[in-house]
């Protein structure tokens, strides 16, 4: 059976910033603040992200930001990707 992966972006996909990191649940990102681990959660009214390491900790809804030292950490958007078998 031929498999085709199709990416369906339910939320906005365009205009990603160069400084943006696309992460999946449980992944980490390298940042000027050090390695940050990211956990994504379902909420009743949407999604939220927990971004943290030993010196920074934030729980952000989509569109929310937190300033830490001279850095602005934002959860710009969430995307749902569906992998389809054919």
């Amino acid at each position, binding site marked *: 059976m031929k498999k085709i992966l199709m990416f369906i972006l339910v939320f906005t996909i365009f205009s990603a910033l160069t400084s943006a990191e696309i992460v999946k*649940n449980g992944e980490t990102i390298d940042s000027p603040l050090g390695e940050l681990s990211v956990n994504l959660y379902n909420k009743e009214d949407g999604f939220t992200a927990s971004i943290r390491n030993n010196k920074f900790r934030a729980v952000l809804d989509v569109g929310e930001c937190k300033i830490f030292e*001279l850095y602005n950490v934002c959860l710009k958007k969430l995307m749902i990707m569906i992998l*389809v078998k054919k």
Partner: protein
Amino acid sequence: MLEEVDDYDIGEKVIQGDITIDELIPGIERSITETEIKEGEEAIVTVKLTNPGDNLQVKYTDPWPKEFVIIIPKENTKIYILNNKVIFDRQLFDEEIFTYKVKLIAPVDKEIKATLEYAGKKITSDGLKVKSKNALKISSDLDPKDPDLFEKTNLTIKIKNEGDSEAINLNYVNIVFPPGVEVITADSKLTKKGATYEYIDEELKEDIEFSFLVRPTKLGLHIIKINAEAVDAGKTVKSVGEEEIDLEVKELFINMKLSSILFKNTGIQISATIENKNDAVTFKNLNCKMEGLYNKEYTFVQVLPEKALDIENTKFDFEDSSTRTTTQSLKCNYETNTGEKMSTIKSKEILINLSSAGEVDEETNDESEDSDAEVDEEESDSEEDESDDEQNVIIEDDKPGFFSRIINFFKRIFSTKPAFEDNSAE
């Protein structure tokens, strides 16, 4: 209640977060009440430091040249003076605004920049341009402001007494015209010495004005220089002024149309136009040469006015059918009506691939999509070109464009059964 999102497998939803981490940069804004200060006078400097991040240890250094004496308000203990520098060295919360005074003690014309050091980094502010106010002020004006070649324009030069004394003794005023500017009429108050007009020895109470009618006779940048000297309360003051006439010549505009990819070697369409985009400059002794796949020389006896001229629109064949990249160029040599020699060349890279012609004809859209995209890109380079009906590149007219393809892609997805149903069915 929060529920951690599922891990990802084929057929499952995968949630991805787009996280940005932007560095915030503190800001420095400075202003001064006067940018031209008389000696002995003061100006107030206002500084605003902003910190968009959390509290930050900063060191702001604002160095002033020795021509200034800094006076800081006694009540402000946050800033101090060290070696003629204003320093703010402490924690910066959201923002900090402070003012201080500078007193001019000697003539100056400088740009003063401040720095802000924080977290091992250093940023520099925009410069504050400050100069001493001269007792003798020179101003000049052209009407019309930007004359064309040989167009007459009125030049007015004003000398003002801006000193403390009611009258100052004007030693001289010199107005020097460059060779590219012809003086048609000069002010009768002036005496002419070569290209220089002089005004000597006069007590200046009010403004004095000189009028000229001039015209530029050459292309390029022409600077009319004005020098004046006066004695104000026993002190000699000098002042310099300049008026510029900039006659920039736009080179000949060449537009050459030829497909970027050729799949055949007969009936190739080539066209070319040339255009003079200047208002007052005309081009003469125009000689052009096509080189590359199509070779031809053109000699024009006419003077090229501002309108575009079609110089080629033909079909040609070429012999060498090997697959290669080659260059087609059109070079024109010409002279301006003022005798300046100029040259313009327009080149275009052409890919010759005769072997793929049949395949492309027979294959479906996908194979030719990329080459079409390339052609579109190349064509758009040659300015607002209208679509070329006689392109040699094989273009399937009914093929969807980029956005149509995206829409079709989504239509295809949504017209099939939903992904989850597919998976569950299996």
